[in-house]
Structures are given as structure tokens and as C-alpha cells.
């Protein structure tokens, strides 16, 4: 899938602190084109903060974040938006606009950034809805009429509206039953392969890691350790050891 070693996201020396409490202490991270990178870590370890820093919702204390080779913090608004058009973000509960139908939600970015006719946008919205495995009549429903799992799928459809190269997922399977979660994992994997996506995923779910992740970044002690499941299982760090070798980890890994 293209140049194998091209970094899509390059984080160097990232420092985040809230009210004097340091969350990230000079964190480095690379996300390669075409891979699924999952970020795991305990509650409060700063997984979501890391994602929010990369997409520009959170201003770090110091450090550099490059996305598609461009330093995001120094860019003027217009150039930053050019980059923003190349990524899609799925928030935890979908973050659909509650006053709009699902189809209208998907059409928001199309409306804003392309000159498509309404007919084409309707067709494309229907296509995205089918793509994420939602029934056809979801298009005309409002977010409040959908279940949590459906809202996530609809949020994914909106994130994919402008065919991004990079997809951010914040806890994609949190709050889903195991069957829906497994289906969602499969969906992410399928879409990632067929749409050639690079995926940056924040998760708690060890099953999701096994099903989807190529590499895993563990946030522990304000630093990041990157590896595959196999290398991280041998890591001596107590938290990482507990994570992969605790009862849930063992069950998921079938060991």
C-alpha cells in the first residue's frame, strides 16, 4: 500500500498538562500510512487527550505534531482546514447534530466543501449509510431515534463523507454489546482495507485490539510504548503486564 514507511502522523516531544498535572511527558509517536494503530491505557492516562491534541481540539504545552508532513500547530486556519478535510473523526457517542436527520448529518461536510447537487448528496448519503451497514430508512431518522450502536455507525458515515485518508476513532466499541462490538470491529477492518484508510483508534477493548490493530501504543507512566500484541505481552511494565495477562486479557488472547 504505497511507501511502507511513510508517517501520516508524527508526534515528537508532546507535553500536555492540566492544572499542573502532567499527562504526557515528552511523548513520541508515529502512525504509518495504511495501518491501524490502537492507543490503549488506563482511565485518565490521556488517550483521548492525545487524540484531541492531534486533531487540534486541545493545545499542547509543547512538542510538535505533524500530520501529512505538516506541523498542525503553526498553520494558519486555511491550510489547517485543507488537512482537516483529509481526516475524519468519530467521537465517542457519534456526536451527531441532534437537530438534523442522519442524511443531513452526512451531508453537512459535502454541503460545505463541494458543489454537489442535492440529488447527488442524497444518493451519496444513502450509499454511506449502506456502507456502514445501517438500514436504508435510517437516512430520514433523527439521532435520538437511534440506538447507541447505530449512532456510532451513523457518526462513522459522517466521518467518511469526504473520503478521508485518515480516520480517528474514539472508543469505537465502548457501550456496545459484544456482538455489536465485534461487528463494528469487522466493519472498521473492512473499510480500512477497502478504502485504504489509516486508522488512529483510542480504545479500552482488548478484543478490538486483537481484531483490528496492526500496532498498539500503550500510554503508561506519561510515556508511550509501541509494539504488537506479541511484543507487548512480554513487556515487563506492571500495567502492561496486568493489561495483557489479567483475566480479561488472557481470555481475549486465548492463553
Amino acid at each position, binding site marked *: 500500500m504505497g511507501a511502507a514507511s511513510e508517517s501520516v502522523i508524527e508526534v515528537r516531544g508532546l507535553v500536555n498538562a492540566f492544572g499542573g498535572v502532567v499527562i504526557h511527558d515528552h511523548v513520541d509517536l508515529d502512525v504509518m500510512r495504511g495501518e491501524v494503530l490502537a492507543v490503549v491505557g488506563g482511565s485518565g492516562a490521556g488517550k483521548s487527550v492525545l487524540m484531541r491534541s492531534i486533531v487540534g481540539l486541545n493545545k499542547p504545552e509543547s512538542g510538535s505534531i505533524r500530520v501529512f508532513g505538516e506541523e498542525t500547530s503553526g498553520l494558519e486556519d*486555511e491550510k489547517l*482546514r*485543507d488537512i482537516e*478535510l*483529509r481526516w475524519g473523526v468519530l467521537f465517542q457517542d457519534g456526536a451527531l447534530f*441532534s*437537530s438534523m436527520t442522519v*442524511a443531513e448529518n452526512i451531508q453537512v461536510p*459535502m*454541503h*460545505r*466543501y*463541494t*458543489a*454537489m*447537487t442535492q440529488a*447527488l448528496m*442524497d*444518493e*451519496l*448519503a*444513502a*450509499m*454511506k449509510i*449502506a*456502507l456502514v*451497514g445501517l438500514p*436504508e430508512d435510517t*437516512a*430520514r431518522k433523527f*439521532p*435520538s431515534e437511534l440506538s447507541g450502536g447505530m449512532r456510532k455507525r451513523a457518526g462513522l458515515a459522517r466521518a*467518511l463523507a*469526504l*473520503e478521508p485518508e485518515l480516520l480517528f476513532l474514539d472508543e469505537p466499541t465502548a457501550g456496545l454489546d459484544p456482538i455489536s462490538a465485534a461487528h463494528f470491529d469487522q466493519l472498521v477492518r*473492512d*473499510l480500512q*482495507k*477497502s*478504502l*485504504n484508510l489509516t486508522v488512529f483508534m483510542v480504545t479500552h477493548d482488548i478484543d478490538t485490539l486483537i481484531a483490528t490493530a496492526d500496532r498498539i501504543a500503550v500510554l503508561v507512566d506519561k510515556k508511550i510504548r509501541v509494539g504488537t500484541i506479541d511484543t507487548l505481552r512480554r513487556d515487563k511494565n506492571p500495567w502492561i503486564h496486568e493489561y495483557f495477562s489479567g483475566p480479561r486479557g488472557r481470555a481475549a488472547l486465548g492463553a
Partner: protein
Amino acid sequence: MRNIAPKLRVDAPATLSAETRAGTFVVSAGGDWVVAEAPRLDRELHALQFGDAKDAAIDAGQIGLLDGTGAWLLLRTEERLKQAGKRVTRFDVPALYKPLLDTMAAADPHVTPGPHPHRSLQDILERIGRSTIGVLKQGYAMLSFLGQITVETIEAILAPRRELPFKALVHHIESTGVTALPIVGLLSFLLGVVIAYQGADQLKRFSSEILTINLLGVSILREIGVLITAIVVAGRSGSAFTAAIGTMRVNEEVDAMQTLGLNVAEVLVLPRVLGLVISLPLLTFYADVMAMIGGAVMCYFDLGITFPAFMRQLESAVTANTLLVGLIKAPVFAFIIGLVGCFEGLRVERSAESVGRLTTRSVVESIFLVIVFDAGFSILFSVLGV
């Protein structure tokens, strides 16, 4: 005109051409078939004349970049060729994009949403009917809520099963009363100024400027003092009640209370309504005083009536009854505002949007009801000859 600020990326513009070659209608695609090119490609594809060849082929082997939208456009073209009665003999895409095309085809993207709903006469009638029934249902629900709260209030006062939520009560008296002092004071001071000024302007023509004070005393104490206070409080506290209780509904806090065996009416509604019933009469009295001060200041500067002269005239113009007629309305208005605020808050569904909608509705409804009840009081007092 839509503002299309940043550009979506296109490296090589998409190309599209069609021709009939040896009895086969061939659609050739090249360049980058990406979302940025979709509006133009869509137009060109719709403009294609399929000709009368029996066979058709799609040749997209020379495509550079293909994304989901582009792939779907190709599939739609195939579908339309089939619908036109042609046999699609060939569909070439670079091998790299085969999986993408398969995924898109499997997603069955042929469905198109139905036309946007039109408003016909029937729809309009249906809407009128629905909203009429909605209003009636709302009235019924509010009446039963009123009944429930009344019973709860009487029970809580006469036979307190548990201690009244005293802390919450004090908190609500503070947040609805004490913190409203600056805004209510300023507004009623200004109203006093305005009424004195307008009254003096008219009454000067009859050389009876002194009656400005009578006008001021009666109109402020009987009507305007309590009305302006009630309207400000409805906007400040009624909306705050709805928003606070509504947010608790969204967070399932209200449901949690019920499962913990807490009485929602007692915990959430009573302290708010009682707090308002206590603070609104006090605020009204304060507003009356501030408006009188405003009037006195205006009378001094505009008419040269000194403060002692103002007080003498005021004493002869109004009686204690005039003040009481105004103040007696305050607890009733407070009850209405508190009740509507809490009622609408408890009707919030599990969406953030409904918090905003019902907060607006709560303010409009409580101001409406306050004015309707004020008119009712006027009729009642004139019948009683107060």
C-alpha cells in the same frame, strides 16, 4: 452563494468519455475519480447519451486515484447501463481498487432516499390537528402535575414525613431572589423614571403635575412592579429550572433518583417552587421601592417636587391595600413560574436538543400564564371592588 473555502485535493483531474466501438458502448474513465470531482462527474454522467448498441463496457483501467465516492459513481453508471437494457460485458478497474469496488457493490448502494416530503393541504390539516391535540394533552398533563405538586406541598407543610429539604430551599431562595436583586432593582428604577416622565408630560397640560405621583403609585404598586419582577424571574429562574432539571433528565439523574426511592417532586420540585414562592413577593416589594425611588428622582428633576412633598402626595394617593393587591399576586405568579419551569424540565427527553427547546417553551409559557392570571386578578378585584 455558498462559500467553498478550502479545496479538496485533486492531483490529476478526472476524465470521462464515451463512444460506440464495434457495437459496444464504451465508457472510459481516467484521472482521479475522487469526491472533489464528484459534482462535475455527476453532471457529465447524467448528460451521457447511451446510444443504441446492445452491449456496453466500462473501461476504468487508466484511473489514477479512486475513492469510495468515485467507485460508487462507476457502479451507478453500470447500474444505469443495465437499466437502459444493455449487457455490461466488461468492467475494468486497476487491480488495486478491486476490493474497494467489491465493498461498495456489497453495500448495495442502489437505494436512493425518497423525494423530500411536500407540504400538501392534507399535511397542513394534519399538523393543525396534531398541535391542537398536543396543546390539550399538554394542558391535561400540566393540570395533573399541578395536582400532584399541590398534594405534595400540603403534605410537606402539614405533616412533614421527613425534614423539608431546608438547605435546598435556602439555596433556591438565594439563587432566585438575592442574585436577582441588581437586575430587578435597575429595571424597576428605570421603569419608575419612565412612567414618571411620561405621566408628567401628559398631566402638565392639565396643570395637575402632582397627580403624576398618584399615577406612579397606583400603576407600579398594583400592576407593574409585580409584573416586571415576575417576567424577569421567569426569564432568569424559570429557564434555569427547566435547564437544570432537563440536564438531569439527559444524564439519567432523575431516573437514578427514582430507583433510589427518592421522590422527584419532593427533591427537585418542592424546594424550587417554595423557594420562588418566598423570594418573588420579597423581590416584588423591593421592585416597588426601587420604582418609587426612580419616580421620586424624576419628579424632583422634571417637576421640582421635593422628596418630602413626594412622600406626602404618595401617602394620600395610595393605601396599604394598593400595595397588598400587588403583593398578593406575587406568590401565585411564583407558583406558576416554578411549576411550569419544573414541569417542562421533567418533560425533557434524552437529547440535548430538547433541553433547549423546552427551556424556551418554559419561559414563553410562564410569561403567558402570568399575564393571563394578572388579567384574571384584575377582573376578580374589580368584581370585589378592591
